[in-house]
């Protein structure tokens, strides 16, 4: 085991997969010589050359669309969208094309493509460098949506995404890039797509979350422990399709469920999670299901005071957890 950062885990996954399989290549804005604006692709250009670490023109629909063509041919492109906020011009390619290629061709063609997109706030990014856009991709059958929260999961899930036969949208929380460090095995491993993970075992309340807010929940759980309540924490990891079994199991475990995400509440992933729990185990709940989410405003403001107001933090999560535990 070695302790590395979340972004190093992503970099390692790409490097190891590119070394293992010559069909894997990277394309995107500034991913080559510069190594990416966040340095996720650092060193790949030097190691694998310009052809496999391709600086593209500044045009997101082409990045996605060209990657789709290459994936249909049989290559394994990893396309980087510089910020998830800028994915919008590529939505037609992702939703109408990548996600439907297998279905519309009756299984004849497929699209083994990964689109990486840094998302989330807390980095003074303002409206257009902070958004959580994952929910809008989470009712698109044909697409898989992944959002890891730890270096271990980030590396293992990215390797799985690269090897997957279908398109995977891979959301990386920007605040986690250097803020989160963790142990990663020195030997090859994968984390399967479609499986949630219990990050903390507990008896009194269940928290279901993903991404940066998983870390807030883990911190809050330590504090709550001192109040005499133990929290069970489930990290969704894959946002679409959801791991229904693990969600129901986690809800049953304590009968009190708090869903936490940075994305705004209405229409967020939390609603779907709540729907699954209501359908499968409503009568096993001991308290009304709660959601703690970002406010329903268009995006995170740039001003620091406003950004802090928008963002969740361990204290806000602790309060919601304590309230539910005491219900």
């Amino acid at each position: 085991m070695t302790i590395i950062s979340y972004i190093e885990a992503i970099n390692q996954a790409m490097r190891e997969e590119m070394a293992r399989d010559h069909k894997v290549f990277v394309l995107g804005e500034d991913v080559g010589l510069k190594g990416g604006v966040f340095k996720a692709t650092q060193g790949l250009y030097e190691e694998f050359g310009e052809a496999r670490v391709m600086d593209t023109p500044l045009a997101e629909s082409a990045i996605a669309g060209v990657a789709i063509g290459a994936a249909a041919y049989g290559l394994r492109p990893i396309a980087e969208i510089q910020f998830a906020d800028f994915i919008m011009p590529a939505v037609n390619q992702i939703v109408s094309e990548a996600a439907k290629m297998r279905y519309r061709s009756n299984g004849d063609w497929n699209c083994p493509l990964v689109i990486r997109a840094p998302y989330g706030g807390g980095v003074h990014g303002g409206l257009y460098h902070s958004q959580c856009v994952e929910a809008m991709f989470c009712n698109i059958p044909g697409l898989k949506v992944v959002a890891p929260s730890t270096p271990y999961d980030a590396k293992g899930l990215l390797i799985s995404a690269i090897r997957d036969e279908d398109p995977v949208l891979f959301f990386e929380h920007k605040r986690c890039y250097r803020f989160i460090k963790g142990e990663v095995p020195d030997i090859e491993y994968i984390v399967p797509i479609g499986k949630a993970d219990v990050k903390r075992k507990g008896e009194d309340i269940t928290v279901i979350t993903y991404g940066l807010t998983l870390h807030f929940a883990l911190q809050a759980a330590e504090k709550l422990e001192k109040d005499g309540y133990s929290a069970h924490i489930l990290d969704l990891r894959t946002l679409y399709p959801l791991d229904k079994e693990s969600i129901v199991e986690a809800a049953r475990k304590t009968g009190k469920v708090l869903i936490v995400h940075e994305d705004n509440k209405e229409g967020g992933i939390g609603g779907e999670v709540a729907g699954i729990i209501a359908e499968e185990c409503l009568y096993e709940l001991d308290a009304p299901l709660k959601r703690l989410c970002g406010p329903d405003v268009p995006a995170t403001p740039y001003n620091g005071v406003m950004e802090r107001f928008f963002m969740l933090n361990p204290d806000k999560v602790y309060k919601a957890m304590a309230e539910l535990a005491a219900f």
Partner: protein
Amino acid sequence: MGDSGTSQIENKHNKLGLSDEQVLNMYRDMLLVRKIDERTWILNRSGKLPFVLSCQGQEAAQIGAAYALDKNKDYLCPYYRDAGVVIVFGMTAKDLMLNSFARAEDPNSGGRQMPGHFGGKKYRILSGSSPVTTQVPHAVGLALAGRLEGKDHVTFVSFGEGSSNQGDFHEGANFAGVHKLPVIFFCENNKYAISVPYSKQVACNSIADRAIGYGFPGISIDGSDVLEVYKVTKEAADRARKGEGPTLIEARCFRYMPHSSDDDDRTYRPEGEVAEEKKQDPIHQFTHYLKEVGVLNEEKEKEILKWVTKEIDEATEYAENAPSPAPEDTLKHIYAE
């Protein structure tokens, strides 16, 4: 056959390296897609097919271009009128009829997509969708993949003049231009995007003019002249294969039918326009040429028409009686199984 010594006009096809047999095949394919198209309209008007998209008036552009490609290695990203392109790459009348009837056996999509949404891995035709022009970046990606894998295939992507306004056209063309990728951008300009005429779609004189912005040649040609289309597309394919990059070709075409079977073009086209254009019918022009150079005669013409009719009759009967997909097939092929 081909006593070209008796002809009154110049034999163009031999000069292009096309044999008499090849031009007769081109003629047969043009006629085949025209007659398939006509049949689908009859089937639509008699209530047997819910929807038709037409290629009538664009056959020379499609067949001429497709014959200039290598059907054993090149890739196609066609658009919804390209029956003439896909037939050259191996689709049959039966395949197209199965597609029109949306049968389980339809090689394009197993009945999932509307007619004209072509695709077939064994023919190297990438599956297409309805949002127009999304296929352009795909073609660039197929070309890029070929380069990365050390192959010398060319990708051919076609679209209408209306589609040349979409961002995906510009983004894809620019990408291919920057990386000098082997892509042929083939615009079938039939002068209408459903009801909106060229003058309200595009401010430049020719779609080919757009190529200058991407740093590669743009050529505008008469899309009703199958040999001219063949010649220019062949040159573009040769350039692409030699690593000299993409070419944009505008084939000026006619659209003899409404946009689709749900459209009534009398509401927006000047009266007599289609009749006037039909005087330059690409099939009549080619028939005339082939007769003039002595490759085609009345007898051969009848023989080909008879073969075409039989193909279509058999294809129609087969497709009409072929089974639909099972209802539960709706749930298949979302992810790898």
